């Protein structure tokens, strides 16, 4: 594997000379698993986004693809949201973890065989099985779609998922938790450890407990997963990527270790209560709703701190942010993190909530979070690890195109849904007939469905940019070798 190391030195010429030296850690990296998970992630992204597109089209053309169980709006929506978190984000996180954990911990992940078992179990036992079961929707309780948001995959799949989450903790936490050369634990490692531990605990609380205690109590618990999936799984791992990519791409240290730590602990302190703000004005006790609101405000201020720390780490690097694609992707995601979090804190307040609850405003918000924040940062992470994985180079042109397409599509979708939400909320508060709000939403749903075109094209461009071989590129720009090409390709570029 040693010839790959040189390739990484010659790469990247856009930025300052990188102090990245292919040291010992690289030899510990499981390149095969990085590739496999990256490939699964990108496939998951396209499939899950296509599900979302079909759901969006159905709002405009209800008869589109109608008549089959698998193509009803309900299953399609579940397959979209579950596909995004389990198929796309989780696989991308795993790919990044196989890349980063050995570098952060100075030792290999627990076991390569465990890695491949986890890969198979996750993709076949969780993602594919989940999609199939939701599509056929068997009548049996154990195999049927679960009526719980963000954990709609059937109970059978939930069990496999929880098992996999435990395996993930076993795979990645030991190499991180034992300090490398007495060097302490880097902030990314904190986030990885925290995210994996909390997810392992929060997932059963939010997706099994509601089945045992039905009714409003169960709903309150399911709210914990709806938001903990975002706050204690996606957010920590995405922030781990951001804290990793920023200093590596700029060669400049993080602004403040102290801010990193405060940001980390406050996130885990204030987040767990946040979940129930999904049930403001509902049949759960007012004290729980109010506590969730108070916690949401505190979380907003924590996010300000985290974003401040990340942005200050880029001081003086504006032109690099513009030129360097992984950095630009991650930077954009971090900006959206700030916007979406402040929006979220405001939304939790009752006067705002009564206006936007159940409207498309919320759908705009969730896309700003999952597509704007999580996906942008994660795509940046994938681009970065593509650049730094043996024999791989991303294709600058395609990735730049992907960036603008996805950003454009997301902006259209977000603005469109936000306006639609305000209009719907106003009509409902005015007591207008339901049908009137449906009619008023039509043009906005059309635009939203159309916004899927640039977004999907952007994803395709990203995939091309990391998989297509571009032999003609000049050597002085980033040499491009497909991320997913067979490992033998390395030799010719080494």
């Amino acid at each position: 594997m040693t010839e790959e190391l040189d390739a990484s030195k010659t790469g990247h010429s856009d930025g300052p000379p990188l102090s990245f030296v292919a040291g010992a850690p690289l030899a510990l990296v499981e390149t095969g698993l990085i590739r496999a998970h990256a490939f699964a992630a990108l496939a998951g992204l396209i499939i899950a986004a296509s599900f979302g597109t079909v759901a969006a089209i159905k709002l405009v053309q209800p008869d589109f693809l109608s008549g089959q169980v698998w193509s009803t709006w309900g299953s399609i929506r579940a397959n979209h949201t579950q596909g995004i978190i389990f198929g796309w984000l989780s696989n991308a996180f795993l790919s990044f973890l196989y890349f980063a954990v050995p570098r952060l911990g100075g030792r290999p992940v627990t076991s390569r065989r465990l890695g491949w078992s986890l890969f198979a179990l996750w993709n076949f036992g969780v993602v594919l099985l989940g999609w199939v079961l939701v599509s056929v929707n068997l009548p049996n309780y154990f195999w049927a779609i679960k009526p719980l948001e963000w954990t709609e995959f059937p109970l059978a799949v939930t069990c496999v998922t929880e098992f996999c989450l435990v395996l993930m903790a076993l795979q990645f936490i030991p190499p991180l938790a034992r300090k490398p050369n007495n060097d302490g634990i880097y902030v990314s490692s904190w986030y990885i450890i925290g995210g994996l531990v909390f997810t392992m605990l929060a997932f059963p609380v939010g997706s099994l407990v509601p089945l045992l205690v039905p009714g409003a109590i169960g709903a309150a618990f399911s709210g914990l997963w709806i938001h903990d999936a975002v706050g204690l799984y996606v957010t920590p791992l995405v922030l781990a990527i951001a804290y990793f990519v920023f200093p590596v791409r700029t060669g400049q240290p993080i602004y403040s270790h102290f801010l990193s730590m405060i940001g980390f602990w406050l996130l885990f302190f204030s987040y767990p209560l946040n979940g129930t703000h999904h049930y403001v004005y509902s049949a759960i006790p007012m004290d729980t709703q109010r506590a969730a609101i108070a916690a949401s405000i505190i979380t907003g201020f924590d996010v300000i701190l985290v974003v401040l720390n990340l942005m200050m780490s880029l001081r003086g690097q504006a032109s690099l942010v513009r030129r360097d694609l992984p950095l630009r992707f991650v930077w954009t995601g971090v900006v959206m993190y700030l916007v979406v979090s402040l929006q979220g804190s405001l939304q939790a307040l009752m006067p705002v909530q009564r206006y936007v609850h159940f409207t498309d405003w919320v759908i705009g918000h969730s896309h700003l979070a999952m597509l704007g924040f999580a996906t942008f940062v994660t795509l940046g992470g994938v681009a970065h690890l593509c650049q730094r994985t043996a024999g791989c180079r991303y294709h600058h042109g395609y990735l730049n195109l992907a960036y603008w397409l996805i950003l454009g599509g997301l902006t259209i979708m977000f603005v469109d849904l936000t306006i639609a939400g305000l209009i719907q909320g106003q009509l409902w508060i005015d007591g207008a007939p339901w049908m009137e709000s449906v009619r008023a939403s039509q043009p906005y749903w059309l635009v939203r469905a159309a916004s899927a075109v640039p977004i999907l094209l952007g994803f395709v461009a990203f995939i091309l940019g990391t998989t297509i071989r571009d032999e003609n590129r000049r050597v002085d720009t980033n040499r491009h070798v497909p991320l997913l090409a067979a490992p033998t390709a390395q030799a010719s570029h080494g």
Partner: protein
Amino acid sequence: MDFKYTNDFVSNFWSMYVVVISLVGIIGCGVFLWMQGSVKHNPGQTTGHVWDETLAEYSNPLPNWWRWMFYITVVFALVYLVLFPGLGTFNGKLDWTARGQYDAEMKKADEQYAPIFNKFLKQDIMTVAANPEAKEMGQRLFLTYCAQCHGSDAKGAKGFPNLTDSDWMWGGTPDKIKETITKGHDAVMTPKGTKPDMDAEQVKDVVAYVRSLSGLSSDSIRAQRGKELYPQACAACHGPEAKGNQDAGYPNLTDKVWLYGSSEAEMIYGVTNGRINRMPAWGDFLGEAKVHLLTAYVWGLGGGVKPAPVIAPAAAEQSGTAGTPVGAVVPPRQETN
């Protein structure tokens, strides 16, 4: 107001659980920050730790503006929980409840709209139906409560009757329509009518006969055989001449208006398996005034039948409605337990 604190969360446990987490979380955040005040920093220098050759962190302190802003959020959270019902069964200093907010808004709406509802409630259906303002209000109500079944144009759908034609299963006079909306109706056709031992061929025969009554294509030999089965199997409900019975909601089979369409297969299916259909009751949910407006709206859609002249229409209308308290327009929502 007799609002009681009732919910699924019957034991105190969950309240205490949330109280503890909230207070420990909020105060913990504050204390945690306070304790960090004594940490020493070396601005501009890294912590000395390096990972993977490039990953390092400076040792800069927390900006003071942020620190104070965060203390303010902690104070905000505590004040918030004192003012509003956020700590167990403590109702908050402002005595705010979601129920109270709802009641206040409904009261305001009642005060605003009661005179208008009252005005129409005193008029008879045909007068109200002629009033454009009432028609508009009726349409809004219809679009909100009825359109999902009868369609926004009230023309119905398979299994849901068209309300704009002059064909009524339950009668089209103001009284009858009002009764339908207030009390709802259940329509049941038993499988194979009153002759459950019919075989598939006999069902086809009787369907052929029914089709022949409204001039639909049918096999005349079958229709002849069906005619003999009809009195025993169907007449009890649809009547000896198949003209139906509006008092019990049995549809007229000779009028060329079909709830489930005029295809032979659909009829065979219906007669073989029976039909169960329900128009929900709206009286309790909407209250008399809204039902009155809806009746006028439906009656005025084109198919309304004038009441028989024997009964003085105004008197009949008024007797049932006069003196109804307007508060009943919006029945208080049931307390969930």
